[in-house]
């Protein structure tokens, strides 16, 4: 059994090594000075990815900003307000787990129909941000709930025994105490957001031009990789270059998460 499991790990490591090496070998040569900031040319086969980076940052920021209050509200609801109704709280959590497991392309379709067609936003950063926010809410909510739940009940009881209102307890004691876990959840969601492709391809579009406002379309990095790999003739090397950038971002997010976890609670 030892041999078999070692073999399995070996195969896994070999694959991932091959994958990352392949990525850099094919992609790195395409990088030019200022690649991250230069405008896109020839549909992506030349120039840099400046507008793409911008669109990615904007959509991610927008989606997180929209999703945060809802997720936090949900965590407060299930953990503080419904403290004495575990069944109801459980049902809410299950709803989030269900939404989190939903195929992202289905969410993308909903975003396209609801925000793009019915609301008339078409392909736009706004539509992308709204739809991505829907995707992030369950991920954030579950993480926030876990964060709040980890704070000992005793803390709340003691505070109230001193006459402090529940709300003040929540805002000034519980949330700060849960902050590391909340932040970790945020980082996790950001990682998911940058890697997400299907949702954004169907809502914020594939345009490589610098968006002038939130109503313009803009491809994000993951979408751009897909476009270069599939739809742009001669786009493969460039797809690899963009994929490199994406990988670097993901590793950075993953590393910071790992470091946060190692910090004492």
């Amino acid at each position: 059994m030892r041999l078999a499991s070692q073999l399995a790990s070996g195969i896994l490591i070999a694959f991932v090594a091959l994958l990352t090496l392949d990525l850099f070998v094919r992609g790195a040569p395409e990088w030019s000075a200022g690649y991250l900031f230069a405008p896109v040319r020839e549909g992506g086969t030349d120039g840099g990815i400046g507008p793409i980076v911008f669109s990615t940052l904007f959509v991610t920021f927008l989606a997180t900003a929209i999703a945060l209050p809802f997720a936090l509200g949900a965590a407060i609801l299930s953990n503080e307000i419904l403290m004495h109704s575990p069944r109801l709280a459980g049902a809410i959590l299950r709803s989030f787990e269900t939404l989190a497991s939903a195929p992202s392309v289905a969410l993308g379709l909903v975003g396209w129909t609801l925000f793009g067609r019915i609301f008339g936003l078409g392909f736009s950063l706004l539509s992308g941000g709204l739809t991505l926010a829907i995707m992030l809410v369950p991920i954030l909510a579950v993480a926030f709930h876990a964060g709040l739940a980890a704070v000992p009940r005793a803390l709340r009881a003691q505070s109230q025994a001193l006459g402090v209102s529940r709300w003040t307890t929540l805002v000034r004691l519980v949330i700060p105490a849960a902050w590391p876990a909340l932040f970790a959840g945020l980082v996790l969601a950001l990682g998911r957001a940058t890697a997400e492709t299907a949702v954004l391809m169907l809502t914020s579009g594939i345009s490589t031009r610098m968006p002038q406002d939130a109503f313009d379309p803009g491809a994000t990095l993951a979408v751009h990789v897909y476009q270069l790999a599939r739809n742009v003739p001669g786009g493969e090397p460039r797809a690899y270059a963009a994929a490199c950038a994406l990988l670097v971002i993901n590793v950075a997010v993953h590393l910071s998460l790992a470091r946060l976890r190692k910090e004492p609670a």
Partner: protein
Amino acid sequence: MREFAPGWAAAALLGVAAALLAPGLLLFLLFEGFAFLTGPSAATLLAREWHPIEGVFGLLPLVAGTLATSLLALLLAFPISLGTALHARFFAGKRVRDLLEAVLGVLGGMPSVVLGLFGTFWILPHLGPSLGSGVVVLALMITPTLALLSLGALRQVPEELLIDGARLGLRREQVILRLALVRARPGILAAAALALSRALGEALAVEMVCGNVPNLPTGLTVPVRTLTTTLVQEFEYARETHAQGLHLVALTVVLLATLACGLGQKLARRGGTA
């Protein structure tokens, strides 16, 4: 001290809105597809072919493609994932364990398009655009989920159980097989169910290598299409009936993923009380 009512009200309102997103999603898809269900093409949902321009909207080849790619991918990923988890938990030193977790983390954080790109260059030339290629790429995608969750389940097996087993004279392998794996089985099955729900929902990586022809998956070399790749390929150009039909396609895959996820939750709960 007075309670800050608006604060609680706001939190409750936001929370309820958030909780209603999941049922809202299902209702929206149903609503959009409703016109299709009451229209003339509804009967074609059970047909064996998907040809929207001829008014035939058979879900069967799409569902078959989805199930075939996902289940086979799970089958392929299972030995590697479980093997890696076992290695990390029982056989590896700290350095190797950290390496494995890092590797799994990197693979897990990789956007699916990158894996699709990898598949286009390394797998497509050998297996062609087919079910087989889709299965391999999908297996790569779900391995981190499966491995990390299985590892978690194995870690939850109490140390005393293993020590007792060793004291009774069982060899390391037997301890693992008869005690740890049995104890962790619900958790591992839950991991498999969750990995399955992820596989069911994958669209782009599979779309790059599977051929996208709505065939019934009769063999590994047959090009196939899944519910999700159909959405990706046709969403933009679909009008009226076709578009409504696509919402039903989306609803189907959401229901399948929800079923798998629910199964996973049930198995996990059973494991927790074991």
